[in-house]
């Protein structure tokens, strides 16, 4: 089967063309070792052999600046596709053809697909395809990936070209570098290298990959440089070649392009002259969205609506504003769906919450029916519980995130595709640079407040691996919606029991603590394991455009498919293990939990999990919820473990044990309308944990390893081998944060010890880094 690769600039419409060519046959994976989308599909047409199509990542050049560029370059060199379709944005010929001049140097047939030709026509500009084709020496075909459906003429040419062999050509042959190119090329050919022209020009450019592999040949280049002097550039060959490429584009290709000149004035019907508005629509939108004063405000408003539509329980605060005070309506009263859509008591749910409620209602119904069915079939109670509580409840609790993840994805994809996300990075870069990341990292972090999963996937928009890893690591510190019950229940219980402070303030304070920990963690990462210069921020700001519905759907569908697959594999297994651990005693007796509490006299206190909890309990002593808590203290340790399934389980674990601790003297009597608060209050009474201990427990759960679903996402998004360190990082961070809160909260004077330790750490990191730099410099100089 013929293999064809699509190459082109980001935003050149490459992926749109790919989707149009391959339709439903497309599938997305990752390139080996790196998290860059690998799209593959087949072009099928009646009566023809199918053509395999691979969408290379969007790139500006073939120099190894980003992983995307290295992938594209290696794919063409190593995998030798039969033909490359170079997708060129016809509305931005000059910069797009820069990549073309490099592709032409490779020994592969090339066909240029001049995309967005409809926009060119609309602007009344003209392009002479024949002239362009002649200048470049390869076929040029106009297409409109967005509007057209039939690409048979393009694929016809691709088919013909693929059967021919093509040797690389270069524009440098008309320059005074031609002799050098030929000489180096000869040396490569002696070595039997393919793509000798491409390799030799990259070496002359001083390309880092090429130099590493052919240091000997590079000496010839150095020799040449010492005798070479250009008027403007001296012996800077890299600059000369870049300049020659753009000169070639301007001189040879611009003649094929004729720009339509808009008259400065138009004359209206009454004969008055009117000035034509300056700039395109995109320019005018941009003026408002990135305005110096309103830019930040507009951004906050957009963000608010995205979150409100996804997580809001009271749409547009109509209920809070008293819109339904005088009505008494509940839609669907008396049915299963009572009040889901609307109830004057709770207001209107946002689309995200509505979808979630419907899905949960549906899955609960399934679980219930399966339970009844199993009972009728005579299944034993543990088998019933295994299927309903272990398998189904596990899968469904993960799936219940799906509607909101999906919506959050959709909103952020719209912002991304429209071109707004690039502007957000532009607006916020100044602030984020200080923490070693660019403005782009803000979006995934803020998404973390909703759900870590789409947030981690969104880090793909970041430029470097280092930035991506750092961002993924701190995302869980932006407390997600599932962690909110931990915050509210613990804050509620603390306020009721100890009579201190205000529950809302404590909750808000915990959110703030998470952000502060994230910032500190970024700074620490920047100067320890993820060291290096702040990556440069040189980025195209693409013109605004309406996102295309079908590509949005494809995007969202890809992500969801991935998530659902994970729910049924790694997450399911992990959940099952935890269920078994909490439902059986070490001698494999089943702990039955019915509607009225524990049935057989055995309680969760006897489970394997409780025993594990008791073993690891001392570990949490420095955090205030370890050995000092006595008999029931292990619940805190176990809560942290069950929280791995889903963070909602932390409080649910407390609730399960409520029945056990209720018999302890001095426990009970606290009633709170905050969900889970009374359970937490009972545990506080039973264990005599102090306030700093509770706060440390909350912060520990907020910043430790997130749920399995998020860990699975992190594994998929991080480069190979990075997950292990990331998990260690989460453990250490949460442990240190918890310890500091407990120590300083309990004995205020320990703040001095903590400060001294921090100061020592900073000083030693500083000196270690200095020593490392010195060593690095030495090896460089040798």
């Amino acid at each position, binding site marked *: 089967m013929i293999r064809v690769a699509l190459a082109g600039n980001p935003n050149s419409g490459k992926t749109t063309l790919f989707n149009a060519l391959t339709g439903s046959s497309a599938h997305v994976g990752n390139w080996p070792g790196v998290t860059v989308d690998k799209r593959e599909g087949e072009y099928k047409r009646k009566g023809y052999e199918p053509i395999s199509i691979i969408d290379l990542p969007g790139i500006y050049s073939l120099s190894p600046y980003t992983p995307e560029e290295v992938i594209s370059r290696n794919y063409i060199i190593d995998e030798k596709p039969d033909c490359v379709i170079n997708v060129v944005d016809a509305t931005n010929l000059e910069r797009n053809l820069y990549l073309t001049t490099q592709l032409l140097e490779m020994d592969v047939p090339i066909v240029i697909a001049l995309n967005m030709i409809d926009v060119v026509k609309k602007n009344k500009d003209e392009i002479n395809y024949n002239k362009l084709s002649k200048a470049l020496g390869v076929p040029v075909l106009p297409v409109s990936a967005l509007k057209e459906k039939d690409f048979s003429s393009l694929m016809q040419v691709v088919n013909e070209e693929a059967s021919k062999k093509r040797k690389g050509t270069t524009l440098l042959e008309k320059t005074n570098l031609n002799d050098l190119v030929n000489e180096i090329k000869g040396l490569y050919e002696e070595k039997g290298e393919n793509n000798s022209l491409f390799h030799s020009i990259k070496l002359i450019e001083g390309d880092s990959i090429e130099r590493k592999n052919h240091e000997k040949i590079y000496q010839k280049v150095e020799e040449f440089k010492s005798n070479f002097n250009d008027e403007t550039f001296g012996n800077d060959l890299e600059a000369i070649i870049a300049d020659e490429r753009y000169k070639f584009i301007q001189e040879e290709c611009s003649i094929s392009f004729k720009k339509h000149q808009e008259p400065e004035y138009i004359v209206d019907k009454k004969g008055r002259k009117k000035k034509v508005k300056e700039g395109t629509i995109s320019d005018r939108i941009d003026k408002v969205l990135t305005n110096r004063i309103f830019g930040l405000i507009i951004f906050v408003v957009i963000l608010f609506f995205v979150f409100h539509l996804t997580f809001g329980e009271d749409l547009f605060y109509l209920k809070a504003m008293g819109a339904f005070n005088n009505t008494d309506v509940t839609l669907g009263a008396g049915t299963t769906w009572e009040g889901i859509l609307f109830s004057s008591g709770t207001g209107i749910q946002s689309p995200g919450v509505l979808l979630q409620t419907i899905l949960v209602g549906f899955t609960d119904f399934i679980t219930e029916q399966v339970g009844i069915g199993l009972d009728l079939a005579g299944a034993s109670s543990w088998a019933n519980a295994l299927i309903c509580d272990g398998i189904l409840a596990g899968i469904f609790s993960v799936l219940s995130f799906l509607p909101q993840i999906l919506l959050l994805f959709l909103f952020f994809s719209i912002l991304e595709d429209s071109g707004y996300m690039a502007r957000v990075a532009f607006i916020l870069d100044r602030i984020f640079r200080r923490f070693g990341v660019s403005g782009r990292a803000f979006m995934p972090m803020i998404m973390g407040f909703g759900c870590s999963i789409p947030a981690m996937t969104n880090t793909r928009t970041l430029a470097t691996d280092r930035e991506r890893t750092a961002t993924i690591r701190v995302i869980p510190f932006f407390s997600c919606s599932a962690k909110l019950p931990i915050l509210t229940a613990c804050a509620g219980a603390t306020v009721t029991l100890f009579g201190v402070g205000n529950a809302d303030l404590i909750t808000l304070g915990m959110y703030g603590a998470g952000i502060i920990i994230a910032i500190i963690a970024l700074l620490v990462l920047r100067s320890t394991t993820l060291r290096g210069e702040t990556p440069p921020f*040189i980025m195209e700001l693409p013109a605004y455009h309406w996102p295309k519905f079908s590509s949005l759907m494809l995007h969202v569908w890809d992500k969801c498919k991935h998530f659902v697959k994970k729910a049924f594999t790694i997450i399911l297994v992990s959940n099952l293990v935890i269920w078994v651990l909490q439902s059986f005693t070490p001698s494999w007796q089943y702990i039955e939990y019915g509607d009225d509490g524990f049935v057989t006299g055995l309680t969760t206190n006897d489970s394997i999990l409780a025993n594990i909890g008791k073993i690891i309990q001392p570990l949490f002593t420095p955090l205030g919820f370890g050995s000092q808590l006595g008999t029931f203290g292990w619940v805190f340790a176990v809560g942290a473990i069950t929280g791995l399934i889903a963070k909602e389980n932390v409080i649910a674990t407390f609730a399960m044990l409520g029945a056990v601790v209720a018999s302890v003297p001095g426990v009970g009597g606290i009633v709170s309308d905050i969900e889970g608060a009374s359970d937490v209050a009972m545990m506080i009474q039973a264990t005599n944990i102090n306030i700093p201990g509770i706060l440390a427990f909350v912060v520990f759960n907020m910043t430790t390893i997130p749920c399995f679903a998020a860990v699975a996402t992190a594994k998929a998004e991080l480069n190979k081998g990075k997950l292990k360190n990331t998990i260690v990082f989460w453990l250490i961070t949460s442990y240190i944060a918890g310890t500091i809160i407990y120590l300083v909260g309990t004995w205020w004077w320990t703040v001095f010890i903590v400060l001294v330790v921090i100061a020592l750490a900073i000083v030693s990191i500083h000196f270690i880094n200095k020593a490392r730099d010195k060593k690095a410099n030495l090896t460089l100089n040798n």
Partner: protein
Amino acid sequence: MEKTLDTFKIGEKGVIIKVNGEGVTRRRLFDMGVTPGANAKLVKKAPLGDPIEITIRNYELTLRKNEAKQVTLKVED
């Protein structure tokens, strides 16, 4: 008059005459079309004054002042 890109005022235009610096940043600037001979215009600055946005080779490019400092342009007096 010659001046570096980071000192430009909004709306100011010039022709690039030199790109200093080294390594990947410089390479990237070349790849994005910031090469001697190209016309550039400062379109706007971010709300906090940095990064900046320029029009070059018919498209919009953003870069930090730190990188813009490496680019010298000739401005009509």
